[in-house]
C-alpha cells in the first residue's frame, strides 16, 4: 500500500503527533504501508517556502525508497522558477504542491499557470489540497479558504497536459459528472481519504467514473488517523485489479516510481542546506 498524502513538519495550530519523518515512517509501517509521498507543512507558512523544500529533502534522505518528497512552491513569490528546477533536478522531489489558500493567489493567475506548465514539462504532477484541516475547526489565525473542485478542474483545462491530484476533497460521482463544461477531465486525479465506501460506495463510483489509475490512496497522516482511510479502500466494491491500483499502483505511476527511479534520491549539496 502506498500513501500519496502525508506530511512532515510542525503544524502551529494543534498538537499533531508523528511529525518527524522517523516517527511518520514507523506509523505508516505499523499500518502496512510501504511507501509514501510527503510534503513539508512548513512550506505553507514560510514566506520563502523553498526553505521548506530544502528541509524536506534533508529530512527524508535517510528514508529514500520509502518517503518521496513533494515540493511546496509559491508562484506569487520570487524565483519560483529556480526553486522548481532545484526541486526536480537537485532535491529529487517528485511532485509540486500548490496551496493558494495559504499563499494568497488564484490558480488562474498567469504565474500559477506558468508554474504548472513548467512543472509538467519536468514530469512532475501537481498536488492541490482542498484543505489542510477542516475549516470549521480552524485556528483563528488559520485560513478558512479552501480550493474547490471547480478551481482544480479549471487548472486541468488550462493546462491539459498537467496531471492534477486533489487531496482532502469529499466529492460524489454525481458532482464529477455534473461539472460545468463537460465530463471529468482526463488529467484530474483524486485522493481517497474523504470518499465513503460503506455509506453509498462513493469511492467505487468515482473509480468506475474516472478509472482506477486516477484514484489514489491517501490517509492524511499524521494529521488524521490512518485506519478510516484504509477501511474505505477495504470496503469499496472494487475488482482486485482496481483495488491494487487504488492502493498503490496508481500513486507510484503518478510519481514515476514505477519506472525504476525510486532510488534517485536527492543530490542536496551542503551549501544548499537551510541555515
Amino acid at each position: 500500500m502506498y500513501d500519496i498524502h502525508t506530511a512532515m513538519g510542525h503544524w502551529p495550530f494543534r498538537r499533531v503527533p508523528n511529525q518527524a519523518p522517523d516517527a511518520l515512517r514507523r506509523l505508516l509501517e505499523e499500518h502496512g504501508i510501504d511507501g509514501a509521498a510527503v510534503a513539508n507543512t512548513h512550506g505553507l507558512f514560510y514566506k520563502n517556502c523553498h526553505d521548506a523544500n530544502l528541509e524536506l529533502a534533508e529530512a527524508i534522505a535517510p528514508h529514500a525508497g520509502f518517503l518521496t518528497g513533494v515540493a511546496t512552491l509559491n508562484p506569487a513569490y520570487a524565483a519560483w522558477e529556480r526553486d522548481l528546477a532545484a526541486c526536480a533536478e537537485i532535491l529529487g522531489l517528485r511532485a509540486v504542491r500548490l496551496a493558494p489558500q495559504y499563499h494568497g493567489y488564484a490558480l488562474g493567475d498567469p504565474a500559477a499557470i506558468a508554474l504548472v506548465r513548467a512543472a509538467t514539462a519536468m514530469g512532475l504532477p501537481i498536488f492541490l489540497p482542498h484543505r489542510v484541516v477542516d475549516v470549521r475547526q480552524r485556528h483563528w489565525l488559520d485560513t478558512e479558504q479552501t480550493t474547490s473542485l471547480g478551481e482544480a478542474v479549471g487548472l486541468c483545462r488550462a493546462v491539459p497536459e498537467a496531471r492534477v491530484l486533489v487531496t482532502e476533497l469529499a466529492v460524489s460521482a454525481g458532482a464529477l459528472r455534473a461539472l460545468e463544461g463537460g465530463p471529468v477531465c482526463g488529467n484530474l486525479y483524486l485522493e481517497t481519504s474523504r470518499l465513503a465506501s460503506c455509506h453509498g460506495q462513493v469511492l467505487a463510483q468515482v473509480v468506475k467514473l474516472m478509472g482506477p489509475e486516477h484514484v489514489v490512496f491517501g490517509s492524511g497522516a499524521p494529521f488524521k488517523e490512518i485506519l478510516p482511510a484504509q477501511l474505505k479502500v477495504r470496503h469499496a466494491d472494487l475488482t482486485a485489479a482496481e483495488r491494487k491500483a487504488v492502493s498503490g499502483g496508481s500513486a507510484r505511476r503518478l510519481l514515476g516510481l514505477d519506472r525504476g527511479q525510486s532510488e534517485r534520491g536527492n543530490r542536496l549539496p551542503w551549501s544548499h542546506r537551510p541555515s
Partner: protein
Amino acid sequence: MRYTIPSEIDCIDVHNHVHPGRDGQLDRTAAAALLEGCTRLRIRRLCVSNPLTGDQPSPEEVRRANDVVLDALAMSDRFIGFCFVNPGFAREAVAEIRRCVVDHGMRGVKLYHQYLVCDPAQTAVMECAAELGVPVLMHAGKVMDAQTRRLQPRLSNAEHFVRAAAMFPRTTLIQAHIGGGGDWEWNLRHLETRPGVYLDISGSVVDAGIVRRTVAALGADRVCFATDGSLEEGVGKLLAAGLTAPELRLICQGNAERLLRLRRG
C-alpha cells in the same frame, strides 16, 4: 492492527439518520444500504432520527419527519428510534415525544439547532425526556468558520451543555459529534472537569488522537460510539484509539445500553 470491531461486542451507533425519499416516505433503498454498510463494519444497531434543519419546523412537519423513523423501525429491528421535536412548540413537542416514545417505542429525543440546549424554551422537552427516562441527543459544535456560524447561529457547544446540565439535572444529555467539524479540543476542555454530559464520537473529522483524547478527558463511561453517517470514520478512529477491551465495550455497547435502557439478549 485491528480493522474490525470485536465480534463479541454488540455495537450500537447512537447517532445516525434515515431520510425520506421524494414521496416523503422512508427511502427504503438508502435505509437498506445503510444497514448493509453497518453490517460490513460490525455495527449491529443504529439509533436513527430524521431532524429538520429549518428555522422553525411546524408540529405537522415534525410529525411527518418522525413517521419516517417509524417506517424504519418497522423495516428492521436493528433501528432504534429517536424522536425529533422543535421545542418552540412546547405543548406539541411534548405530545410528539409521548407519541413516539410511549406509543411507538422510540428510545431518545433528538434536537437540532432551533434553540440553544440551555435556552429556557427547552424546559418542557427536557422535563418530558427525564420523566420518560430517555436521553436527549443534540446537534452541537464549536465552529470557527464564518459560513457555518452564519448558517447555524444557535448551534450549542460544550459551554452551553454544561449550563444545560445544571438547568436540567434529571435529563441525560448527549452532546453530538465531537468529530463534527468544530473545535473539538475546546469542547473537551470545557467538559473534562464537569460531569453530567455525554459525548458521541461521530462526525467526519478523524484527527489523530481525537477519540483517545476524548476518552482521556471524559472517561470511557461518558463516551458513546456513533457515526452520524460517517461509517468508516467512526469505526476507524475508534479502533485507532488504542483503547482497552473494557473501554471499547463500554463505548460501543455498555453506555448505550445503559442510557437507552436496552436489555441484553
